[in-house]
């Protein structure tokens, strides 16, 4: 009997989110008396599988089928469901990313089992499992119960920090060939368009955020300059996208991107809860605001009280001065 961790990878490189799921899964499997298994799907799965023993997986299933080359939610979900039926899996775990929640939901629908998304903690029990899960992006918590033959859950992204296992496990690789109907190719990715090369909002070590206080699309230029000096990117609040100053893809928040930089420089952002839940995984937050009472100032580790239109260029200038450029 095993707990199966569904891993995501990019052409063989495991995602940080998957390492979080494995980190979360190790004590969970131990508490539930289950072996830890993992599954990797798609092009490069072999390479991704090789490192999973170090993360505690006793068994690594490499799912192989012509229509699994690229991501497809139905084909991936069906693969998970078949692994559950055929390899003694009694619990399924993934990280609550877009894909993680989607694939586990697909698996749950196919198995006709419940699925609890975005948990922060999970306690297995013989009479059903209990868990605390996040709602409203993390501003509200729900204590929930899960009664099921197969327990399917996801762990909220950034709820745990990924670490390798104290003791590596065997990581025995086993090929799994699911029986997939060709019709499932209908939801496989057919094309991928890259708009931004290099660092992005979700991976940037520095995010310079702007809110309503920035005032216009043009007034983001100094924020762009500071971000460029620090090797970071610009993010924004919902007020900014609603005003059409920046595209929705720059939005940080519950319905935008969850960021986790080394530092988030939040300028002219009051810190509404929907924004905060997208920013709270930042390791450090510097708030720049004219209002010393703003929520963002109260929640930040550091703050500068002042007008961002003066403060942000002054920081850029100081960075350049110290670099001697």
């Amino acid at each position: 009997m095993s707990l199966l961790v569904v891993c995501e990878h990019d052409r063989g490189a495991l995602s940080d989110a998957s390492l979080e799921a494995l980190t979360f899964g190790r004590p969970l499997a131990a508490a539930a008396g289950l072996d830890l298994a993992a599954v990797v799907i798609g092009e490069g799965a072999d390479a991704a599988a090789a490192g999973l023993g170090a993360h505690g997986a006793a068994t690594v299933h490499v799912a192989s089928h012509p229509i699994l080359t690229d991501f497809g939610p139905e084909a991936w979900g069906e693969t998970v469901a078949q692994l559950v039926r055929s390899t003694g899996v009694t619990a399924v775990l993934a990280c609550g990313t877009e894909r993680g929640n989607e694939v586990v939901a697909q698996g749950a629908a196919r198995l006709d089992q419940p699925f609890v998304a975005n948990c922060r903690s999970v306690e297995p029990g013989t009479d059903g499992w209990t868990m605390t899960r996040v709602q409203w992006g993390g501003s509200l918590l729900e204590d929930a119960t899960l009664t099921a033959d197969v327990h399917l859950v996801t762990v909220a992204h950034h709820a745990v920090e990924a670490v390798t296992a104290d003791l590596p496990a065997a990581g025995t690789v086993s090929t799994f060939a699911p029986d997939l109907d060709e019709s499932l190719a209908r939801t496989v990715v057919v094309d991928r368009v890259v708009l931004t090369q290099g660092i992005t909002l979700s991976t940037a070590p520095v995010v310079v955020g702007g809110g309503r206080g920035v005032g216009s699309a043009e007034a983001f230029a100094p924020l762009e300059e500071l971000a460029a000096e620090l090797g970071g990117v610009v993010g924004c609040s919902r007020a900014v996208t609603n005003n059409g100053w920046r595209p929705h893809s720059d939005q940080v928040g519950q319905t935008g991107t969850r960021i986790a930089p080394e530092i988030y420089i939040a300028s002219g952002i009051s810190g509404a809860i929907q924004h905060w839940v997208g920013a709270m995984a930042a390791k450090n937050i510097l708030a720049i605001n004219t209002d010393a009472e703003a929520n963002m100032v109260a929640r930040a580790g550091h703050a500068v009280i002042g007008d961002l239109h003066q403060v942000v260029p002054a920081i850029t200038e100081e960075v350049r001065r110290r670099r001697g450029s």
Partner: protein
Amino acid sequence: MLTLGPAEAEEQLRYAASVGAHRLVLVPIAEVDWDPQRTAAALAGAIGDLEAADGPFDLVLFGNESADAGGFQVGVRVAHALGRPIVNGIKGIDVGGDPGAGDVPEGSVAARREIDGGFEVYRVPLPAVLGVKEGINLPRYPTMKGRLASKKVEMALDERTADAGGQGRVRLHRPEEQVSETIILGTGPEAAPAVVDLLEELGVFQ
């Protein structure tokens, strides 16, 4: 426009009518929340009845997740029950045959989903289900004319029963507030050196 919820959900449906929905269906529930499996079973049943009367929908759109419960699964379960394809996280749709849809063949949709630094494209044959995300468009505001017209749109009630699923709620609570003493680095542009000291300390500026 179809929703499942308590009587207050009628307000949302009326709002939908004021911005263009022609037909409103409410699956009324007494309790505040139904679990995702129960919700999906009731909605799949309601869609099935609508289709039995008027023929199949080409495209059924769900919100990717509810803003409150955030179960991330009702659309997937309904699509599975209806035997239709679904892709979640969609922020752009081109309907085949529409002007501007390029080479997307009639009888299918091209759906775009954001990924880190770009987007990926799906080509899904109709009939289909899509889970759409906020940011797919900027919703219009209701006009006065729309508001008035919405009052005349018929609201159908579809009472349904469905078995409870395996997820139960015990209680809701607020997360412990992370108490942080905010260190004020200064006031105005004079604070810049202190900010850069901090950036150096954090190793984000060398």
